[in-house]
């Protein structure tokens, strides 16, 4: 994010606890409401809603906990998802549709279909993922607001 602080931006950061399925979906729901209030195009709102929902669920299922930060510029939105571990051993494998390391009890809840990361990539205009075993994963998604 090479942008200057002086630009008009709206930013908020929210934490997701490990295993907190009860709260799953709250952040993406609040993003949706906020973006609709900002007048963001409904197609972008829907893509961001899906991506942020997947990210939120991923944090609850796979990580030791983490945070989601949304930064809205007049022409662009960034969504940054960070966690504190355990990290992804093989990112290329994790990005494959249908690949999942979710445990059985999570699949019983209807999650863990191996579509989380691929869905995030599909729904965002730019997608970067970096991960280090033992320290955590960072995902940066960008959404273009012009045309």
């Amino acid at each position, binding site marked *: 994010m090479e942008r200057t602080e002086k630009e*008009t931006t709206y930013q908020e950061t929210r934490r997701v606890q490990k295993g907190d399925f009860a709260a799953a979906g709250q952040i993406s729901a609040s993003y949706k409401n906020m973006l609709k*209030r900002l007048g963001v195009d409904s197609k972008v709102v829907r893509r961001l809603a899906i991506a942020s*929902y997947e990210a939120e669920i991923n944090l609850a299922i796979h990580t030791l906990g983490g945070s989601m930060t949304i930064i809205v510029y007049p022409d662009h939105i960034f969504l940054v998802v960070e966690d504190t571990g355990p990290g992804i051993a093989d990112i290329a494998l994790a990005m494959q549709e249908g690949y999942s390391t979710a445990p059985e009890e999570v699949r019983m809840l209807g999650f863990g279909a191996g579509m989380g990361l691929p869905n995030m990539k599909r729904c965002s205009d730019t997608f970067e993922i970096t991960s280090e075993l033992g320290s955590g994963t960072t995902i940066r998604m960008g959404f273009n607001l012009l045309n």
Partner: protein
Amino acid sequence: MEKKQIYHSVKLEKDRCVGCTTCLKRCPMECIRVRNGKASILYELCIDCGVCVRICPHNAKVAQTDPINAIFRYKHRIALPAPTLYGQFRNIASVDHVLNALLALGFSDVFEVARAADIVSATMREMLKTTDARPLISSACPAVVALIQVRFPELLPNVANVLSPKEVAGKMAKEEYSRTHGVPMDEIGAFFITPCPAKMASIHSGQSSYVDGAIAIQDIYGLLSSQLRQPVPETLKKKRHASWQGVNWATYGGECAALHKSNTLSVDGIHNVIYVLEEIENGKLDDLEFFEGSACEGGCVGGPLVFENAFVAQNTMRKLVERMQEEDGEIQAALPEPRDDIFTAKPRVPRDTLKLSDNIAEAISMMERIDELTKTFKGLDCGSCGSPTCRTLAEDIVLGYAKEVDCVFKLKEKVEQLARQMADLTNL
């Protein structure tokens, strides 16, 4: 920010409103404010669901519908009874007795909306064979359609582009009547016997409607009950009737059942509908074939303008449908064909009223101020300020509709501060 006026049925009787916060807290669209001791509706967000009409303890929220004598503006008058009407009477001998009672009120003819529902079902069954929409969303409940227009515009392409049963009924009734009686269409008035304000609103919403007015079930309940024992003439018995499947539309789940598909979902109650639409918007129900949402709990039988208790009416409807299933076994074979002339003329457009400003940079700054302000409130969402939540108060302040001291806690702080300053001054 409202671009064009949309007709709304839900109104406030100012004299009856005591300024309590009952409706404020229950409105699913957060579109009620209490200002100067009286409730007011932010109409650009209102979807005419009628929740406030149902819950106001002082009957100050009312739904504007047409009085029965409005039908006499027309030379030829057709009643379009919602199937819900049949569930209002606990011991009716037959549907025909209800239709006959309507004729006694001054209608020249009746056309069952349930018959139109049969045709909509048939058309939708065809549509499901070819559509890519997952799920296809029912267009029958006008409050749910309005909800999607305001809050879920991205789902509008999923809403079936078929007319609602009352519109189909209006169209077919007028066409049939005009043909068989040889009278021009504009001399025929079609009046929907309605369980809800949303259907009234959709008739007058500016889009052309085949229906000329709506009469609340509760307004004619008494008149109808007194006519229910009249013998039914042969001509009425011979008329084409709705199947039990069409009649079954009155309770939630009835529409899904008529599609003969298993992967469908019916949800009743506006808050539940919002929850499931969120799931659909999140892409979580992409394998679902059909979604039927009713704003009212129980479906149309739970409408705010009915007379009978919704649960009792559900039971009455169930018994009626079971009886019809036994009786019309054979008629079942003759379910109506799908039609290709019952689609919406224009696509449904978003009601773009949620945004804070047309300029996104300005909206972003406003959102920042709203966030800052919200943090300074206690977060009790008590409603005493006249806005439903602390957050909506912050929005109202930023939009210029309210002041910080509308919050009773802020006011208390201010008064204490003033008192201290006074004390300091007198001690000088």
